[in-house]
């Protein structure tokens, strides 16, 4: 279902078949692990069995002596990385920490951290060699939970780390890397004005991005010093810059070839295997390929953090929020840098508040270093804030969507963390949800409940580059640096097609390596259709300008007299003078040479995304199992370039949000070892767990983009856990404050409410 204004465009808003589709449905598309090279060696990684241990020594001599083993590398093989900070898309990382995450230094900080890597003639020999590496560990007590980590006297992960407190470096050693605060108005005065106050605490578990393709990396380091990397990444230029800094090699010596990528969701931006492949390739002189097992993916990459959160909110009888206070403690994993900043900025973003305070704490624990995961940080804080709002509404006896209309942010409102909104479509999503038949349909049974929740994500822009060359048959070839993770070849190509008056099929997009296109920021932050779309738009304008000039030259008339209308170049004055795009394209070589357009942009006109979701659930009071009966997701997409892929992003985000809400969770034993590192025990939703997911695309065009694009990928994961928690609460009359809301947790909450049985 799409609500939109009358048709403004010829290509945008249509649903052409994606250009890379046939390759992907026939199995011909080449993903990272599919690569084969002559003389290829296979690598494997030795990982720490301890969540926290000092590494006294590593003896690799027996492994190196095993026939078939070609090289072994350890942390000491990584050139001393400078203590600089590298921007990684939605997060940033200190290179020293990244180096230790890639291969441990003198401490292992989580179970699964890479300690050493082996290259051998085949995987079996490499695995055999791992068993021969002798590591002398001194195990240390681990901290695996954010609340344990911040206790006085907790074991410290980084003895040299000093806590940052409100922007100032202190001399305090703790596992809190950073405490920051956003404030607006007067919190206490706001709470005084409230007629109802709700205060709740929340705990959420670590969850993984769960892409089906495991990480991989292949490297060839030629004797001329040129390093080529093939990998599945969201940002080939980010891989290049991380490798340059880790290996202390000039960027110009590194070429990163992005293979097709089997899902990322934020988790394939930081490097893991690529530097190991490079080091092994340098030592052996051969190409070396590494791929992770599923257990390595769970234990050595991702996840998104577990949290502890507190929310206190006051509202008056008129239904206005008078004050809100949010405290967020996010697990960064083994190294600082959780997405708590984004979580704190998003927490209250959908609301126009006079009085609010948000505190964020970035806390290190003995778990894998947190990576970005679809709207990183926002889903957790929305779980806390959006369920407290639901409880406020219950106490005030106000419809939760009407309440959002009263308090929702609009153009000109200032967020608690500072920025003022431009044109946004939050209230439009709430109105569309209110008007949706789903919201009015009776639930039709006992133990059923309906919940709503909203979500915010900033979206991003950034740098991108694009080349377009005109082919003699009237098609154009489009070269871009944005890795296509879910249909962006087509959404970018469509924007060029719109400018040139061509059908989408006449634009042939190709994603190329870092030597073959200008700098392009990650496929992340919901940025690609905006930023690479803008680059394609500008490159197409460049082509159009040149083609108009060429037609003017052919017709010996001033260029001002010529226009391009629906794929036809024509004179504004002489109806006899016209050439279709293909006819003009066919004349280029003989009339002055080929035409190529290019553009490099730094897209700044970012338009934030809002979503409002409605969910119906049925909870079995005997087993505690929650079934999703119906799901409707409303989202402002700005302009939906390819509505099918917008719907797909929304449905995929909802599915991940449902998994996060109901099932997904890292289980750790007392030693800090993950106990469920397989898809059998880490249960992601299957087709049987989900209903069809209805989507409503609201289009409030982003004035910062020529076609009004906002970016759609991330915000749909934000509302589901809160919406489902609200639905369960209404079904059972008990408030859910933990994620996941697995059957056991639901039963515990139910028994606690009934009193006694526990």
């Amino acid at each position: 279902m799409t609500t939109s204004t009358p048709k403004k465009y010829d290509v945008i808003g249509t649903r052409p078949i994606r250009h890379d589709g046939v390759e992907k449905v026939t199995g011909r598309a080449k993903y990272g692990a599919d690569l084969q090279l002559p003389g290829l060696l296979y690598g494997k990684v030795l990982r720490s069995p301890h969540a926290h241990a000092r590494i006294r020594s590593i003896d690799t001599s027996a492994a190196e002596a095993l026939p078939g083993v070609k090289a072994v590398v350890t942390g000491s093989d990584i050139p001393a990385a400078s203590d600089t900070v590298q921007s990684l898309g939605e997060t940033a990382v200190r290179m020293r920490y990244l180096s230790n995450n890639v291969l441990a230094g003198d401490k292992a900080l989580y179970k699964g951290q890479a300690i050493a890597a082996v290259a051998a003639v085949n995987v079996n020999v490499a695995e055999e060699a791992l068993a021969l590496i002798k590591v002398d560990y001194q195990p240390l007590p681990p901290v695996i939970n954010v609340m344990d980590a911040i206790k006085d006297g907790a074991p410290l992960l980084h003895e040299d780390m000093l806590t940052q407190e409100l922007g100032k470096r202190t001399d305090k050693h703790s596992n809190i890397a950073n405490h920051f605060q956003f404030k607006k108005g007067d919190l206490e005065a706001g709470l005084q004005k409230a007629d109802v106050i709700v205060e709740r605490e929340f705990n959420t578990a670590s969850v993984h991005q769960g892409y089906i393709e495991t990480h991989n990396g292949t490297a060839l380091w030629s004797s001329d010093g040129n390093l080529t990397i093939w990998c599945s990444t969201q940002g080939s230029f980010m891989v290049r810059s991380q490798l340059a800094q880790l290996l202390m090699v000039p960027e110009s010596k590194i070429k990163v070839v992005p293979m097709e990528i089997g899902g990322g969701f934020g988790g394939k931006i930081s490097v893991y295997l690529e530097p190991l492949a490079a080091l092994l390739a340098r030592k052996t002189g051969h190409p070396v390929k590494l791929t992770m097992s599923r257990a390595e993916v769970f234990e050595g990459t991702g996840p998104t953090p577990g949290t502890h959160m507190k929310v206190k909110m006051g509202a008056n009888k008129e239904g206005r929020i008078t004050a809100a206070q949010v405290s967020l403690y996010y697990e960064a994993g083994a190294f600082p840098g959780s997405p708590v900043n984004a979580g704190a900025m998003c927490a209250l973003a959908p609301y126009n508040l006079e009085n609010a305070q948000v505190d964020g704490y970035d806390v290190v624990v003995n778990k894998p270093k947190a990576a970005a995961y679809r709207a990183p940080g926002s889903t957790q804080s929305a779980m806390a804030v959006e369920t407290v709002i639901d409880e406020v509404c219950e106490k005030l006896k106000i419809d939760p969507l009407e309440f959002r209309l009263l308090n929702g942010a609009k153009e000109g409102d200032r967020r608690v963390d500072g920025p003022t909104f431009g044109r946004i479509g939050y209230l439009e999503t709430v109105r569309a949800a209110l008007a949706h038949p789903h919201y009015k349909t009776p639930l039709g049974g006992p133990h059923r409940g309906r919940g709503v929740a909203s979500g915010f994500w900033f979206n991003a822009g950034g740098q991108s580059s694009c080349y377009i060359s005109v082919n003699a048959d009237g098609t154009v070839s489009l070269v871009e640096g944005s890795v296509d993770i879910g249909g962006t070849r087509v959404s970018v190509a469509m924007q060029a097609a719109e400018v040139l008056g061509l059908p989408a099929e006449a634009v042939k997009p190709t994603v190329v390596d870092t030597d073959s296109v200008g700098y392009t920021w990650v496929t992340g932050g919901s940025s690609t259709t905006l930023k690479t779309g803008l680059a394609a738009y500008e490159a197409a304008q460049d082509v159009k300008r040149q083609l108009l000039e060429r037609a003017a030259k052919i017709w010996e008339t001033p260029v001002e007299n010529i226009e391009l209308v629906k794929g036809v170049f024509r004179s504004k004055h002489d109806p006899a003078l016209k050439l279709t795009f293909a006819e003009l394209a066919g004349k280029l070589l003989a009339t002055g040479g080929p035409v190529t357009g290019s553009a490099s942009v730094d897209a700044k006109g970012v338009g934030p995304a809002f979503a409002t979701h409605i969910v119906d659930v049925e909870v079995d009071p005997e087993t505690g199992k929650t079934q999703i009966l119906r799901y409707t997701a409303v989202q402002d997409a700005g302009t939906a370039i390819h509505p099918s892929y917008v719907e797909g992003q929304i449905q995929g985000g909802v599915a991940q949000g449902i998994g996060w809400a109901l099932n997904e969770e890292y289980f750790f034993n007392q030693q800090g070892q993950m106990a469920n590192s397989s898809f059998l025990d880490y249960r992601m939703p299957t087709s049987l767990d989900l209903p069809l997911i209805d989507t409503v695309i609201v289009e409030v065009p982003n004035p910062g983009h020529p076609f009004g694009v906002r970016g759609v990928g991330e915000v749909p994961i934000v509302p589901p856990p809160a919406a489902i928690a609200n639905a369960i609460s209404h079904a059972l009359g008990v408030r859910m404050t933990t994620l996941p809301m697995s059957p056991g947790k639901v039963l515990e909450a139910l028994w606690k409410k009934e009193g006694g049985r526990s």
Partner: protein
Amino acid sequence: MSNKTHVQARINGEDTEFLCEPQQSLLEVLRDTLGMTGTKEGCNDGNCGACSVVLNGRLVDSCLVLAVETEGKSVDTIEGVAGPQGLHPLQQKFLEEAALQCGICTPGFIVAAKALLEREPNPSEQRVRLWLAGNLCRCTGYDKIVRAVLGAAKVMEAKKP
């Protein structure tokens, strides 16, 4: 190297010979020995379905089948789904319905769905969901995949003489 076994199997209708070690899975041999990388590895323990193939008419995870077990048997993979005349209706519907995003799980879904439609030409939505519950997709939320399979069933039914 010396303990390799000679295996003869019928892969996508072609008699195929290969050498493999006794511990090698069918998935390994398909991908690494035969270069048929359309069959994907997502977990290597039978929980994601990305490596789905049909073995003697039965849908299996090729990571859980030893390559030596295929001696004298037929193996059908994603590479055999499209013919010279073009795409299979399932492949076409996956494209039209935008039933793939990253595409890594797509070969497994198409192989699994084809096995279903060959048994049951008119499955219900619930039946499709149950049958495909062994295949994980993390991108789509399954909505468009289920629609594509139901749509392909209709096309295939209409094409029947």
